[in-house]
Every structure is written in C-alpha cells, then in structure tokens.
C-alpha cells in the first residue's frame, strides 16, 4: 500500500505539487492525469525521490521512504519512462539485468529472469537477448523498458507517459498487455498520462491534477458520472462520456435470462461493443455466449449517471 501524505514541492516559493494526499492499495493501478504543468510528473518523481519533497511523506507499506537511502529505495521501485531511456551501449539482456546486477543477484538467476521477462513480453529470448536498443522498433523498445523496470520483481512500478512515443495501434496493444501483466503479477502501479482515455481504460483509480492540486481521486466511473469540479468535467469531455462509461463494464456483468436472435456476443466484451453491435445489426437484444441476453434497455440504463 502506498500512502502519500500532504506532499508538496516548491520551486522558488511556487508550489508545483501542493499538499497532495492519496492512497493506492496493493495491486491497484492508479493513474495520475492532468495537463502539462499540473504537477503529475513531479508527484510521481517524489515517490522514488528523483525529486526531493519540500514537505509531506510517502509511505510504502507503512515505512516512510525518507528513512531509506534514495538509491536503495529506487532499486525496490520499478521505473519506466517515455522514450524508454534504454542504455544505448548495452544489449537488451544487459538493459533488463540492470537492477538485478545492482542488487548483486547471482549470474544464473539474472539470466533466467531476463529470459522469463522477454517471454512475458512476447519477445523471443534467443532473438532479442543480444540485440542493441537501436535495433528495436518503438514498440519493442517500450516493452524492453517495462521489462527492465520489472526485472527485480518490485512491489511498486512507476511509469511516466510510458506509451507517449508509440503510434495509436501499437499503443492500444501495449496498454492491454500492461494491464494483463499488472493483474498477473499483482504489482501496484502508478502511471502518469495526459490522456484521459488512457486513464479511463487502464486505471482502477484516477487522480486528476491541476496547478499542483489534486482535484479528484476516484474510480473511473465516479470521475465520469460525478466530476468534482468543472475542470475535471472539461478534461473528460462531455461529448462521449456515456460511451466511456459503457466501455468500463462487461457484458457478463449485466446479462439477464432470456432468448434473442442472431450471433452471440462474448461475456468479456464491453457494453460499448454490445451497444455498437445492437445499433449495427438493428436488434434490441443480443444473446450472450454461454447463456442469457443483453438488452438495449439495460445498456441504456448503464449509460447514465445514477
């Protein structure tokens, strides 16, 4: 569990991060979102003390991080950034092995861990181990960057705009993969982005920041249906918030007993997909694979704030 208590950072008397408090439960994915200059990156960098807080505390599992030497703290926290920051003079395997080597793991264990991570990120170890960063595509380099951050099995992973340099198609895939790997490993993850869609798609919790202040910290559905300030509402945009809300829930969650005509939809599909299918095929209800139906009325009810 990560507890941020009254954290502030001043530059020349100006608060870049102003008295922010929030808690991220173990295994949760929290997204810090805001415009540039909102203080989200500074807040993230105070967690691993790349920026020294002016006041306030960060506690990891109840331990104040200020009591640890900064470099030892950072070796326990994964860190991945935009543009991946891979070391250009080191191979993929050496890059991933950075933190385990700093921690003095035995060689054999490091080699095994590197291969395990490459496989996890769908990169063939035999082919990629010896490659240099400049021989990787953008998407591959990004995955190696995240693999490097996860190498020493950190309990907490910090990511600063990790998908910022990727084109939209690769980005969607990378986001899906990250979500899956994060659930699989149970890693607590704090991610910074300026993209509200990314925040809604990925986050268990979203922290909206502006001018150094934390405006709202809530589950995505709450942020969409009950924005705390006009700024938060503007940031999510009002045009397609109904669709965004639908994209948060799965067909399986609202399946009701009944019979319907036509091809069935998977229970794992989002309500947004179900709505699109209803409109496209002109049906009022869709059968769900494995039994039950989802109706247009049920979808309509889910697309509104309650």
């Amino acid at each position: 569990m990560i507890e941020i208590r009254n954290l502030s950072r001043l530059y020349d008397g100006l608060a870049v991060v102003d008295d922010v408090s929030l808690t991220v439960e173990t295994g949760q994915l929290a997204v810090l979102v805001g415009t540039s200059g909102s203080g989200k990156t500074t807040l993230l960098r105070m967690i691993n003390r790349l920026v020294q807080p002016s006041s306030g505390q960060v506690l990891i599992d109840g331990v104040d991080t200020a009591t640890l030497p900064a470099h030892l703290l950072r070796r326990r926290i994964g860190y991945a950034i935009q543009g991946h920051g891979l070391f250009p003079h080191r191979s993929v395997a050496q890059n991933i092995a950075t933190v385990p080597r700093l921690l003095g793991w035995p060689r054999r264990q490091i080699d095994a861990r590197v291969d395990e991570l490459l496989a996890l990120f769908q990169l063939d170890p035999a082919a990629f181990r010896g490659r240099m960063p400049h021989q990787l595509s953008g998407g591959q380099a990004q995955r190696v960057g995240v693999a490097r951050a996860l190498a020493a099995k950190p309990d907490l992973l910090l990511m600063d705009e990790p998908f910022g340099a990727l084109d939209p198609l690769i980005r969607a895939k990378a986001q899906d993969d990250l979500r899956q790997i994060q659930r699989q490993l149970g890693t607590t993850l704090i991610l910074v982005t300026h993209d509200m869609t990314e925040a809604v798609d990925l986050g268990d919790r979203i922290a909206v920041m502006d001018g150094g202040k934390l405006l709202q910290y809530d589950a995505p559905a709450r942020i969409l249906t009950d924005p705390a300030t006009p700024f938060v509402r503007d940031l999510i945009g009002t045009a397609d918030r109904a669709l965004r809300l639908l994209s948060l829930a799965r067909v399986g969650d609202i399946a009701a007993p009944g019979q319907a005509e036509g091809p069935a939809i998977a229970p794992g599909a989002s309500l947004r997909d179900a709505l699109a299918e209803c409109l496209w095929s002109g049906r009022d209800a869709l059968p769900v694979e494995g039994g039950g139906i989802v109706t247009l009325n049920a979808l309509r009810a889910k697309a509104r704030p309650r």
Partner: protein
Amino acid sequence: MLLSPPGVLFALIGTAGLALPLVQFKPNRIVTGEGIGLHALPLGLPLAAALCGLLLATCLGRWPAALRLAAAVSGFVTVILSLGLAASHLTPEGNTIARVSPASGFWLLLLAFGLMLADAVGRLRPSLAMRWLMLAAALGLVAAILASGLLDGVSVMREYASRRDLFGREAQAHLMLAFGSLGAALLVGIPAGIAIFQAPRWRGPVLGVLNILQTIPSLALFGIMIPVFGWVAASLPGAARLGVAGIGVFPALVALFLYSLLPVVSNTLAGLSGVPAATRDAALGLGMTRPQVLAQVLVPLALPVLLAAVRIVLVQNIGLAVIAGLIGGGGFGTFVFQGLNQTAMDLVLLGALPTIALALVAGIALDLLIQAAHRGTP
C-alpha cells in the same frame, strides 16, 4: 564516365613531378646543388615511363578500387626506390661529403601516389579490421625499405647514420613530450570536464580561461615561461630538484599540457552533455548511485567524443613538440633547429619527416579507435 576527375588531378601532379628534377646532387651538404631528373639515370627512362603509364592509366574511370590501390602502392614504392637508385648511382665511391637530396620532382610524385592511395582506400570502404591490417602493412613496408639499406645513400639517411644514437634519444624525448603532456591533460582535463558538467555555473569561466590559453602563440608561451619558471626554480627551495626550470623539458611539457586542456575539457563536457536526458533519468531512477551513473552510463556513452579529443591533442602535440627543440626540451625539433642554424636542409628533414609520419600514424590509429568505440551505438 570515362575519366576519373581525381585520377586526372593525380596524373597532373605526378607528370609535373616527372618533369622536375627528382634529386639534387650537392658536392657537400651546404652548397646548392644541381637538379637531376629521373630520366637522366641509368634504368631511369623505363622507370619514368612505367610511372607515367601508371598515372595515365589510373585517369580512366573504370578501375576497381583494389586495382587502384595496387597501382598506388606500386607507384609509391617505385618512387622511393628511384630515390635510392639515384643516390647510390650519383654518389662517387667512398665519398662521404657529397649529398643526394630528394628534390621537388620526388615530393610531387610522392604526393600524387599518396593521394591516389588515400583515394583508393576511401573507395574500397575496408572493414575496421582491414584498416588496422592496412596500417600495419604500410608501417611494415616503410620499415622494410628503411632496413633494406636501399635508401642509405640518400642525404637524410646519411644524416641519420651519423646521429644514430642521438636520433633514438630524441625520438624517445619527442614521444615522451607528446604522450606525457596528453596523459597529464587527460588526468586533469577529464575530471575538470566532469566537474563543470555537474556544476554548470563554472562552465563559462573555466572554458573562457582555457580558450585564452589556447590563443597564446606557442613561441610567446615559451617566452613567458622561461623567466617565470626560471624564477620559481631559483627562489622556491626544492623546485629545481623536482625538475622545474626555465628551459628544457619542463616548460615544454607545461606548454603542451596547457594547449591540451581546452580540447580535453570541452570534449568531455560535450560528450557528457550529449547523453540523452531520458537515459540519465532512467539510470538514476533504476537506483544507480551518482558515481555508478557516471562510470556505467555517462562515460561509456561519451567515450567516442573523448577519444576525438585524444586524437586532436595527440596530433597537435606531436607537431607542437617540435618547438620544444628551441628551448632545449629535446625531441625531433632539435634536428630541425640545428639544421636551420647550419642551413642544412637534410638535417631539417631528419627532424621533420619522422614528426609528420608520427602525427599521421597517430591520427589514423585514433580514427580507427573512435570508429570501434562508435560500434554498437547508432
């Protein structure tokens, strides 16, 4: 294209060389002699015809680079052997006073085939390992020609023969001056470069001072140091015993060291500043300590730029070390200035030629090292 433009240029230089005297024959080392062309020597006509043929043939554009290289090397060797032939033919038996010196024709021919050689190597695009082999082969070839005794009759080699021991000592002194000042500059300059990289406030003042040092002409710098170090040696107890003196090796080393600082410090700074911010941020964020970031990330990535500084400094200092001969610092400059005083150009050449060769070899070797350091990074 039927004609190769560089080939035409080399042919023009080379044929001009063939038309001019190959050597100068002088009854003794001081008087001006008479110029003698290659064609006037026995075997000279066929040799001249062969060189002329090579020059004209390489004007044509269709040659593969390897063949061009072979032509350049054979031309180069032929020119040098012609010089040896001229010397042994022209010098009367048993005469140790008469001198046969290379003249304008020889230098132009050497230049033509040297340019052709560089052009051919450039077109061949050899691998790194191949370049090292070529450098070694070239050095081996020169050593073999010198050791064979074919050139022993040439004036420069005669000067060498009468100063064999001295030449060895001055060569050592020259290398010591060039490499010693480089070593000292690296020892001081790299930490200074790292320091101003981490403390940007100091960049302006430090680079400013080094820039001013760099603009002082070398003779003026020696001029300043003679009284300054003379005074230090005389008035500071123990200084003289440590080697401090107004003339000799000490001020020469100090001058070369001072000239080396700017390239070393500024390239260290440029190399470190060139490392992407994301890379530095990642290194810190992953938990490297500041010394680890420096040793494992910043310095390895700055290495090609650092080696470029070593190249600049070494080539510069090999040349500048000649001036040390003026103030008794030793080195090949000793021969150059002795020769100038005695108006003996052959003696000047005995100092100048090895200096040029040394600078050339050091420059090429470091270029190859820099390329090797660049491999693996884009």
